């Protein structure tokens, strides 16, 4: 048994080390000087001398600071909007029996799995004609709309688990439909809302394709687009690019570490549990 345990530990450790190697490589790279990078090529070794100045270059000269802020401006209203609207549709689909209920649910679920390419051209085209192309609002509205599929499905699953007797009792007490939604159901699904919010936050933060389609001006670009820009301008400064990549990754990473439980709950709910 002891030998097995040792074998297990060694195996597990090797896998984990392999897994985080790409992280370590970029972390070390972001603190190295270009001379050290090119001369030693020991990517996996910590820097001989630490250069935090790469981050300042990325933040200021490469504009990552502005992209960083832009991403917040896009992500926060998108998440809030998606959560609010999907809580309405999820409520309707979880609690009421009506003819189109199943069809509407299927439309939401089907839509969340559609290839994005199927939407690119029309969404781009009418964003231009509506005058919301190359503006924050255009991307935000798209994110809200597109995320409704997953959010509705997710929240509906949770609302289904609330016993119907609560609903009946409230009805008898004379509570209106909106009161039941806002005063009874919403407080009960708060944990689910938190899980969903965290998941959505990282997804929208990490979006690239839709910003590429809907945004043109440098001054409103989110961080993913900014990072790809960096690739063009700073192509030979791998240390600056690594610093940029870390700046782009740090918020979702931090959110994940803080709210790990919710994050994973969100990913597995509606699939494994559902």
């Amino acid at each position, binding site marked *: 048994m002891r030998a097995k345990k040792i074998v297990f530990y060694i195996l597990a450790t090797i*896998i984990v080390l392999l897994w985080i190697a790409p992280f370590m490589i970029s972390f070390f*790279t972001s603190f190295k000087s270009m001379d050290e990078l090119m001369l030693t090529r020991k990517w996996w070794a910590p820097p001989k001398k630490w250069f935090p100045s790469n981050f300042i270059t990325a933040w200021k000269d490469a504009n990552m600071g502005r992209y960083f802020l832009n991403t917040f401006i896009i992500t926060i209203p998108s998440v809030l909007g998606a959560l609010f609207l999907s809580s309405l549709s999820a409520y309707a689909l979880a*609690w009421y029996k009506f003819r189109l209920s199943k069809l509407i649910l299927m439309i939401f679920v089907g839509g969340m799995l559609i290839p994005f390419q199927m939407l690119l051209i029309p969404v781009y085209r009418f964003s231009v004609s509506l005058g919301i192309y190359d503006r924050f609002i255009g991307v935000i509205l798209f994110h809200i709309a597109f995320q409704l599929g997953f959010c509705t499905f997710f929240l509906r699953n949770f609302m289904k688990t609330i016993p119907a007797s609560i609903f009946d009792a409230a009805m008898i007490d004379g509570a209106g439909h909106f009161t039941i939604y806002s005063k009874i159901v919403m407080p009960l699904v708060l944990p689910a809302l938190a899980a969903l919010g965290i998941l959505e936050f990282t997804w929208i933060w990490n979006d690239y394709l839709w910003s590429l389609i809907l945004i043109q001006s440098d001054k409103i670009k989110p961080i993913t687009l900014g990072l790809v820009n960096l690739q063009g301008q700073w192509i030979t400064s791998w240390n600056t690019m690594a610093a940029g990549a870390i700046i782009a990754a740090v918020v979702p990473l931090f959110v994940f570490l803080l709210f790990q439980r919710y994050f994973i709950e969100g990913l597995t709910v509606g699939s494994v549990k559902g």
Partner: protein
Amino acid sequence: MKSKKWVPYAFLALPLLMYSIWVIFPIFQTLYLSFTDWDGVSPEFSIIGWDNFKLLFQDPYFRISLWNNIKWLIGFAGVSVPLGLLIAMLLDQKFRGSKVYKTLMYLPMTLSFVVIGQIWSWILEPRYGALNSFLSIFGIKSVGWLSDPNIVTYSLIMAASWRQISYAMVLYLAGLKQVPKELVEAAWVDGANGWKRFVHVILPMLRPATIVAITVSVIDSLRAFDIVYVLTRGGPFYSSSVMANYMYIMAFNNYRMGYGSAIATIQFLITLGFIVFYMRNVLKKEEAL
């Protein structure tokens, strides 16, 4: 629930309206555009029937892209899911530090494919990259991970799978929570007997996790875009192109919106089968609740 008929519709009105504008209606519009020769700029265009589709299947670059998507399907879904299961089986035990180990394994899941692409760009770089530098210690000659047309797609799949394996592992770890511990431990430690128990006892219990992991991976492998765009833009010479990238190039760089729509439509039709599969499995289980 008894109520006036309009009540659920009142709650659904705004969400459904937005969803229709940005998701449902565009699907039909793309279907329509796939039968036109629209260039994306001129106000006028004509309906050309199946011409775009006929052209597509003679287009060598589309064929490469389609073939690469099949490679993605096998590599990204077919390899990541079992590997995720394997690692989940290994880590699903109580041991000191198990929480830290798991957290570290989850990390790639939080990254965007843009960041993943960036990170892997200096791992896969042919002259100075980390992987080749590492291999040179063992006397292995440099490999053109991103420059050799025969290898490049596999390199991209490897980079993308880094995240996908983590995702499959999360799903399986959640699934394994519902399987009695002794079964799992027995299954991975004691040989043939354990293997039988694994196949006949544990695997069937993990069916829901498997269905989700496979469907999501298949669908993501068919719409793969970001990482290809960031690392190679489909190059060299279209060798790593996938349908999503080819569609983007055709529609937004070459102004062939009709042709691009036809590519998207093919992608959509292939995905549709899996969407139906997913809905049947997941929604049916829903009904049972």
